């Protein structure tokens, strides 16, 4: 509708405080609900393989290609993907298996009829965002996972004021007090066109000029990883 379109225009990331994104956070949490509803074992396995995938940006792109093909009704072949080593193909197959797909002996990928369709499209939602992140961002995201920073970063827009300021005294932001962690996050945000500065007792988070979709893509991946880590409830 016309109203819907104007609302969408208002929410497109534009230069300004990070708090502008907070209205969309509930939508993202809802979209990743299928991850949260997985059994603990299933979710942990998916999370573990995703951490491995995050260290290899070529694998992220390959995964996006396969999932897009399947959702478009195709039955892609893993060995038709250019430049993937056998090890990478194994990692790919492991992820696909956990996302509700089955890799046949001829390497064709098909849907597992027992797996919920929502799980597959949610996995694609996350992977498609990861695949669009700038070079190095995915690896930095992996570091943030290892530093257990993801829930903090998801929460940041919620506690950011209209001026872009959030107090480091807020217990939910405690991990950002560490200088090393902060530097990693600062670089991750900079690559996603968000400026993050620390000023004594607070941090200032501002979306830069012409951010395109990068802040949104960053927050989709953060919420996806948060849901997989089981921290979204």
């Amino acid at each position: 509708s016309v109203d819907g379109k104007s609302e969408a225009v208002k929410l497109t990331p534009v230069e300004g405080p990070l708090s502008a994104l907070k209205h969309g956070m509930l939508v993202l949490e809802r979209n990743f609900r299928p991850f949260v509803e997985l059994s603990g074992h299933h979710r942990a396995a998916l999370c573990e393989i995703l951490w491995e995938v995050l260290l290899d940006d070529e694998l992220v792109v390959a995964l996006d290609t396969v999932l897009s093909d399947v959702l478009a009704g195709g039955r892609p072949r893993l060995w038709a993907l250019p430049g993937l080593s056998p090890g990478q193909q194994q990692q790919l197959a492991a992820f696909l298996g956990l996302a509700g797909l089955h890799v046949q002996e001829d390497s064709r990928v098909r849907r597992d009829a027992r797996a919920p369709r929502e799980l597959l499209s949610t996995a694609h939602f996350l992977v498609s965002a990861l695949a669009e992140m700038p070079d190095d961002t995915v690896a930095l995201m992996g570091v943030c996972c290892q530093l257990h920073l993801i829930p903090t970063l998801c929460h940041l827009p919620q506690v950011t004021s209209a001026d872009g300021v959030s107090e480091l005294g807020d217990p939910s932001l405690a991990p950002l007090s560490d200088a090393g962690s902060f530097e990693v996050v600062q670089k991750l945000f900079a690559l996603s066109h968000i400026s993050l500065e620390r000023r004594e007792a607070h941090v200032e988070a501002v979306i830069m000029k012409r951010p395109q979709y990068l802040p949104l893509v960053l927050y989709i991946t953060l919420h996806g990883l948060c849901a997989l880590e089981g921290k979204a409830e």
Partner: protein
Amino acid sequence: MFAKATRNFLRDTDPGGDLIPVSSLNDSDTLQLLSLVVKKKKFWCWQRPKYQFLSVTINDILTKDQFLNPVVVESDFVKYEGKFEDVVKGTVETALGRLTLNAGGLGLVESQSSFGTLRKQEVDLQQLIREAAERTINLQSPVLHQVLEHKNEVLCVVTQKIVTTQKCVISEHVQIEEKCGGALGLKTKRVEVSVSEDGNVTRDSNVVLEIPTDTPIAFRVLELYVKEDGQFEFCLLHEKQGGFERGSTDGRDHLDAGIFGEFIFPFVPD
């Protein structure tokens, strides 16, 4: 590795432009002017479209005896030498050093590229459009069957390509640095492109690709809008979308756009 090198090249020379990086060396043979390419429409607004080469040209799908003979214009494109500093490396080392992770490492990329002198080959569009005006596409062509099956695919024609004029070497360097008494393994991965003067590779590399002269590294396409009777037109403006004249569908599943509305789902496959 090749995909990363070509993507970096375009990020430097044509940011936000119409050129598309070639993602696989295997596509080099099939990437000729007037080749047909399938563009897969994106599911979500933040995605870049994906392209798949068909090993035929538009002449192979035209109704009998209607071949197009385009005029090809060739010119210098650019002499390209780029260095992409690894802007995150130092920061991460500092952070990891302090936090002493035991993780298996992380992949960071530093690229240093030189494809040397590049040439641009392009079809004379005015002449092509004039010549194509009376032509029709044979929709019964076997080549088109699979494209027509998928409703989110658009047929495109290659109208421009950027090719190398020298042999180049693309190499990948993977380095693992032990830090903090071996507690931390930091893996860095670099992709470099260099002009091969004498064919020798002197670098200590894990993977090396040598790409020959005349290898396309980027291309440009025009989308086709094909009517039910086989008549077609080139989509010259960004607002004009290609495709086949038929019904609609979309594949969003359960995902909720909510208050993002068309912010998340602005591009519905036709």
